[in-house]
């Protein structure tokens, strides 16, 4: 066997060893203490040919149920089955985008740099804020960084966190808060909307709210802004970028920082990743911005060029004093989102938002028509809503999967002990048809009988 992507012939290896005055490849590792050197070789499955690996992948893939005609997707919770046209896949898979490194040499990286610059502009516009970075890992990571920014900017580590924020993201925030030691205070939900009165009084560093929130409901953003003002906090809004096709932007509703999951912008469901964290803020916080930022400049002949900028925020320069430790981010997904948004245009994004909301309304009505099925929240929702079923959500999901429907996501972690626990969170996109929704309702009716 020869490693499949190593070009060297035996003769070449021998020639190179001779040049180095070595007798064997092993000698290259002489500096590795003998005591710790691996004796028997790694204990791994044998190498396989490309064809054999492909066969195996086919076999494994058959054990998954992708969404589509045989598993119609009503699951969301941050990952949505939106239309992605062939042109987006085609452009985003161009190998120059895929196999480039971080654009450290701008003279030969204008392609990626310009694409990020365009992405930054679009995200800034979607969020209604002035600045956006070149992406973070995912929505949860953006939330974490948003809170870090708010805490650093205010010098206050008290975080007022709405229970309407995606519970997975809240958990990630909690995990990472162990380091800096943020104090997280939860703002409870009442009928699906955040009760901002619960946290009056004491100063805080961040108020965090979802818009729409995890249950699809539309929180009282004026209330959120007021709380931020009253506590001296930065208002961090977790938003769904699709909603910006229809709803007011976080920025126009008072957000200081807008964070979101960018998956709905052209990224495949991908079993949860790679997605991309959207991050934007006001200009005054730009020097605390986490992650990469591309700016405009000129080359030595005065030609407009792009380059990564404000590097002094970044870990490779600032080390322990950096505003974040992020290095590798999700650039390819950011490029994908820029292409998708270019394909959509304002009218397309509006249609995605409107179509998703229409399907939600239709589905909600159809499902609430089933005996024993109740709305878990009363508030207006955008494209996602929670239902209380006669059976546990997990049971319904299993049964429906056999009927060809991914019924939704169960509401449990992050809502333990609340009246939301065990409900089913149903999501729609502009791809859901009347026929699919009718079929789903008919199957759910059977499943909960």
């Amino acid at each position: 066997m020869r490693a499949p992507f190593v070009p060297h012939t035996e003769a070449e290896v021998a020639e190179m060893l001779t040049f180095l005055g070595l007798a064997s490849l092993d000698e290259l590792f002489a500096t590795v203490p003998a005591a710790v050197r691996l004796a028997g070789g790694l204990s791994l499955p044998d190498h396989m040919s490309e064809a054999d690996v492909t066969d195996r992948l086919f076999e494994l893939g058959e054990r998954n149920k992708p969404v589509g005609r045989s598993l119609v997707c009503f699951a969301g919770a941050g990952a949505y089955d939106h239309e992605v046209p062939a042109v987006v896949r085609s452009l985003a898979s161009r190998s120059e985008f895929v196999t480039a490194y971080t654009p450290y040499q701008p003279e030969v990286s204008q392609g990626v740099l310009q694409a990020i610059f365009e992405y930054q502009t679009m995200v800034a516009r979607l969020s209604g804020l002035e600045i956006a970075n070149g992406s973070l890992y995912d929505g949860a990571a953006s939330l974490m960084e948003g809170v870090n920014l708010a805490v650093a900017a205010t010098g206050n580590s008290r975080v007022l966190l709405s229970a309407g924020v995606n519970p997975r993201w809240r958990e990630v925030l909690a995990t990472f808060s162990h380091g800096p030691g943020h104090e997280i205070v939860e703002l409870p939900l009442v009928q699906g909307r955040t009760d901002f009165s619960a946290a009056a009084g004491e100063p805080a560093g961040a108020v965090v709210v979802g818009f729409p929130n995890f249950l699809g409901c539309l929180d009282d953003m004026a209330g959120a802004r007021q709380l931020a003002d009253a506590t001296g906090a930065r208002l961090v809004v977790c938003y769904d970028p699709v909603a910006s096709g229809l709803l007011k932007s976080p920025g126009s509703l008072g957000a200081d920082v807008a964070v979101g999951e960018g998956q709905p912008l052209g990224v495949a469901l991908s079993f949860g990743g790679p997605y991309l964290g959207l991050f934007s803020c006001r200009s005054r916080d730009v020097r605390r911005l986490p992650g990469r930022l591309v700016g405009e400049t000129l080359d030595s002949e005065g030609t407009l060029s792009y380059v990564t900028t404000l590097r002094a925020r970044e870990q490779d320069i600032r080390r322990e004093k950096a505003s974040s430790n992020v290095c590798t981010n999700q650039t390819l997904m950011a490029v994908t989102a820029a292409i998708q948004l270019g394909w959509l245009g304002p009218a397309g994004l509006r249609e995605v938002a409107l179509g998703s909301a229409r399907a939600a309304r239709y589905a909600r009505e159809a499902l609430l028509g089933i005996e024993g099925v109740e709305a878990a929240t009363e508030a207006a929702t955008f494209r996602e809503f929670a239902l209380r079923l006669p059976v546990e959500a997990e049971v319904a999901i299993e049964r429906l999967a056999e009927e060809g429907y991914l019924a939704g996501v169960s509401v449990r972690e992050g809502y333990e002990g609340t009246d939301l626990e065990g409900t089913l969170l149903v999501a729609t996109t502009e791809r859901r048809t009347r026929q699919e929704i009718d079929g789903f309702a008919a199957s759910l009716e059977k499943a909960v009988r």
Partner: protein
Amino acid sequence: MTSETETTPAAPGGRALSAPLMGHEAEPTLFDLSVSGRSAASFRTTELPAWSAEELLPAELLAGEAARLPEVSERDLVAHFTRLTHRQYSVDLGAYPLGSCTMKYNPKVCDEAASARHFAAVHPAAPASCTQGWLEVLVELEEMLCAITGMSAATLQPAAGAAGELTGLLLMRRYHEERGEERHRVIIPDSAHGTNPASVTLGGYEVTTVGTNERGGVDLEGLRAALDTDVAGIMLTNPNTLGLFEEDIVEIAAAVHEVGGLLYYDGANLNAILGVVRPGDMGFDIVHLNLHKTFATPHGGGGPGAGPVAVSERLVEYLPGPRPVRLPEGGFGWARPSRSIGRLHSWHGNALVLLRAWTYLRLHGADGLRQVAEIAVLNANWMKERLRESYDIAYDRTVMHECVLSAKSLDDETGLRALDVAKRLLELGFHSPTVYFPLIVKEALMIEPTETESPQTLAALAEALELIASEARAAGSSESARGAPRTTPVRRVDEARAARHLVATYDQRSG
């Protein structure tokens, strides 16, 4: 016929002057190409009632108009982004000897695996009954990573190396907390990558820096002096960022363990030691791996990556959850470690990146990986020896997968700096090495050829680097390189200006 700014006419989408094939103009932005009312999108026919926005949502929350986005035809969208790709260097165009970045060839079969509908169209919240294939891949990947690192279990959630580091530090913190200990410091060598100290801070620790000895390793005495029971652990890259193997690793491990600290292995350089030595055997407790380096998942122009963290037995129960596991009754499911530090990612990590790495590992097996390391190291040493006459060698001993050279003498003699070497090299058909890192080497040029570059490519790269040095020495000046690059779509870019006059969106452009 006007662009979205409504002041200048829209730019022509079909003119290809920005494609280096044709010319050297700047590519207009997508916003410049926008024409009000133009569009590309279309959607499924749903046959749903055509409720208006006002019927669906509270009027006071509705935006007056949709977010401003460019309005372009599919044709112009394609032309624009295709031209951008022609303005972009990539592994697929040529060698990318960026030290510390392991820019090896990214096998196409891995891309194809990641684009298969049966993996790419799976919802992350689908029940385990619908994702058995995925779970098996993740479990097998975890097992293989443990075998490679000599660890007991791993989390696949971290989305990149830095996220893995932070995860590792939180594991370290939990470990000490569980033992009722409060420790405040983490030790880092001065040669470390910038993410290490940044992660330490985010992990709630203070950084203690230790120096580098004359052989390029950790200064053992300095380390010993810094060690006490306030030290939570040490973060090491081994081989380190000088491309050198820590000869004293056994002693280092013993010393750190002696004060109750843990050893964290920054796996960015794991490529060098695959099948040669395992971090676990060296005494490490926590290892993060950069799958986008060692296991050839493409970098995507800056990401996505994946930074799984593997740990020794005593840390397994703290791992983030839920974790994909083999079920005793057969099949696969999810489980949360009893004392988990909690979730790190919205879902399960960068799954399609993990799938690519799984594919890469199955293609290689044990013998393949060992050869990867051998040839990567062979290439780096060949390069170092070959360039001995032209550049300074920072630490002159056998290197592992990369070699750190320096343009210091060259600068002294001719004024030619590492940056000039980098820019001139672009003109000679190669991406440049990493420059000015590690920080402890002046005018550093960090070359990592990787195992996928052939001896012929190595020779050509060496020749180019020799030429740069020799033409400067012959002229006694840096002139030849100062004007570089001359052949690229844009000439040398003014980085300072970008920071001085920040324009980070199209809307911040003045006119």
